[in-house]
């Protein structure tokens, strides 16, 4: 059995067909070729699959693809404006806030969601907001520095 789902993905209208038991993560990766979101655990513990649904941060491994019907999905692939990287993306590179990079898409999506809610977070707020995004390499602290640098740049803009 398959279901047609109509959504907006990174600003574009997208219809896709999926199975009713398929996760949003698998649909994004397998059906739409958006492989930026990763599966690190499948249980909502690691945050590598983070995307936003209508602006709300979710673990896409815990959302069924059919639940995205009529919703706006934002993934890491939509962060840069063409060739121009988002300030968070630039700051992560500049501050060495990524290493192997597999957790990075989820952390960037989560950090963007934080800054949209809280443009001037404390270090503590960043640490706790991103506590659900595991990095094993581990880039902690540098990640906080990068988010703060991007936040400062975005406040100036």
């Amino acid at each position: 059995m398959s279901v047609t789902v109509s959504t907006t993905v990174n600003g574009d209208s997208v219809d896709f067909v999926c199975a009713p038991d398929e996760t949003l993560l698998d649909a994004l990766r397998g059906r739409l070729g958006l492989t930026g979101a990763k599966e690190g655990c499948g249980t909502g513990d690691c945050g590598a699959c983070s995307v936003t649904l209508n602006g709300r941060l979710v673990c896409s491994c815990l959302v069924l693809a059919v639940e995205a019907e009529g919703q706006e999905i934002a993934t890491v692939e939509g962060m840069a404006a063409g060739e121009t990287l988002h300030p968070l993306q630039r700051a992560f590179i500049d501050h060495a806030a990524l290493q192997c990079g597999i957790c990075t898409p989820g952390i960037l999506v989560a950090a963007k969601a934080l800054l949209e809610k809280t443009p001037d977070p404390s270090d503590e707020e960043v640490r706790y907001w991103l506590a659900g995004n595991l990095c094993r390499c581990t880039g902690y602290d540098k990640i906080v520095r990068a988010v703060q640098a991007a936040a400062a740049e975005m406040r100036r803009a």
Partner: protein
Amino acid sequence: MPDTLPFPPRMGSNAGQPLSRRDGPLKVTGAATFAADNHPEGMLYAVPATAAIARGRVTGMNVAAARAHPGVVEVYTPANRPPLMHDPDEKLGLFGMRMEALQNDSVRYAGQPIAFVVAETLEAATEGAALLAPEYAAEPARVTAETGERYTPERVGFGGPLSVGAGDIEAGLAAAAHRLETRFETPDQYHNAMEPHALVAQWDGDKLTLDTPNQAIVMACGLFAAYFGIPAENIHLRSPFLGGGFGSKAVPTGAQILTILAARELGRPVKLALTRQQMFGPVGHRARTWQTLRMGLDGAGKLTALHHHSTGATSSFDDFIEPAAAASRTLYASPAILTTHDGIRLDTGTPGAMRAPGEASGSAALEVAIDEAAEVCGMNPLAFRLANYAEVEPITGKPYSSKALRECYEAGAKAFGWASRPLAPRQMRDEAGMLTGWGMGTAVFHCPMFPASAEAVIRADGTAVIRTSGADMGQGAWTALAQIGAAALGLDPDQVEFESGHSHLPDAGVAGGSGHTASAGQALHNAGEDAVARLAELASTDPASPLYGTGNAGVLARRGRLYARDDESRSESYAEILARAGKPQVEGTGKGARDPASAETYALQAHGAVFAEVKVDPELGQMRVSRMIGAFAAGRIINPKLARSQYLGGMIWGLSFALHEEAIHDRRTGRIVNADFAGYHVPVNADVPEMEAIMIHEDDPHVNVLGVKGVGEIGITGSVGAVANAIWHATGFRPHRFPVRIEDVLPSLS
């Protein structure tokens, strides 16, 4: 930023600079392709079914139900698994391990693959595996020290000696003013790279393409090929990015072999991606140790004897004993040192190398024991370590190729403010009333190298391409190796194309043991110098060149030009030299390997000193690391920005070892009860404070031609002890078991 003076001077200006990683833009946009991101046309999904018992046999499975599930294409069990050209129970090479590829119905640990389902979708394969509902004839699980079989292994680690020592321990203890015997337990830890072990296999006749993360790309092709009876060069293994490895992604595992087999049998590409839960068993771990340290101390606080014994756990069917006691061989001076090992066989998967194998567990015990010795002597822990500073390697008497540990102690202590530390524990509280303690540990890691080779080609337009099968698992090989290659070629990194990350390239050796930058880097360095020498040969033999007559040793390569060494007004660009010679390119090759003479003459070790502040809630016993500073001396630093990440990452692994990580077995079933990220604790952003890594300059002309020692693992080693010793200083409770738990410290608080 640390000193980035070019050393040796023949290296150009880019090596030593804190460049941002070259793969950064791909990784922040989601465009970096990891193995599981590959989705070839017609691909099937494979899911292993795993054992729910720890020892015994599988007596039945409902294969019919699995096969009948819509979308299931094939179900493999020991009854129908097609033959392999190599017995999965035979070890291949130095790094090969026994694996489970459905060779029989036995179960030797919980989580072992016992069947393999291939289906049109991941959901169908997962459901098919669940429908198998295996039945077992179970035997009692042996997952504790009491139930495991104690034995004497032949070797520890990868072929290391069981026992190493010098001097008379008993005489040293007898002569001591103070004697100390102290015991430690370290837990099972699992690598848990964020990227699960994945593999996409595609056959084309007898040619095989593998997309899989691997830390030893060319070596792995040889191992994979052996199971399928094809030449290694028939395999194209693509591993441009690894989502972390930490030692768990070097040798093939059973599920990977079965994936390749299924792809061949079914004539379609097949993808495997282990679930997080399936990574607790068949892909290695850092095994438990039980360690005992016996120390003798004279009246001045100097060691008279140091005996470090470690009992390591391994599986019932293969051997990997953590070489934990090795940490005591090289760090502190003592007239008598003995390091010994034995083993216990348990019904677990076989352990393996996990970031800083040996040193991580061993130094955790040693650094706490050293602090206890300092306490017995009434000495400041730093003063005690300095009193026992090894000027030469204690057991061998060899000089160190370089050793700036004293400078590490000094710089770290100064940055931390160690001088104002009260000697006695439980003297400090912060403004919120938290018990506050300061601890330190010495970091040490050896500097292995692996045979590596590389090519460098200077092209007609004056740019270059360098080639080696490097593995970037986050440490920064794409960047640091390119910097080394570019420096040798006298070019900026952006003029150098770097082909890496797949197997149809010269063998870059193993990305492990903190030896990749040194090994593959030396190969690239030599290849670059070889290409420059060939270019210089063209110029110096060409009467029309301003460099005519210089000889190929009489030139310097810089910024795409060759200069006469003794007269820099004479120079010519690479493009001009090649154009006049009518050549499209010149090619150089190079190798990297340890010089046996330097290994024979010198002790080769990187060092560091880590300082930690821990705050303990006096009512709840909750422990938080609030500050951590490490100072490290690891030879020449190719890229301080990336090296800093490695140091900090290692220190956080140390914090994690001290406070978080432990896989816990159920004694009845033998299963790991916390085999996922909900139960297996790794640190998160909220656990980690502001941290600093200080780089201490070290010129090492002996360790290798680059002077590089390696930075990937050392950060863990002093850090576990630093955190544990800070807990003691905060509370007066001395940890002897890791991770330190709230219930351990609570009694000392009431």
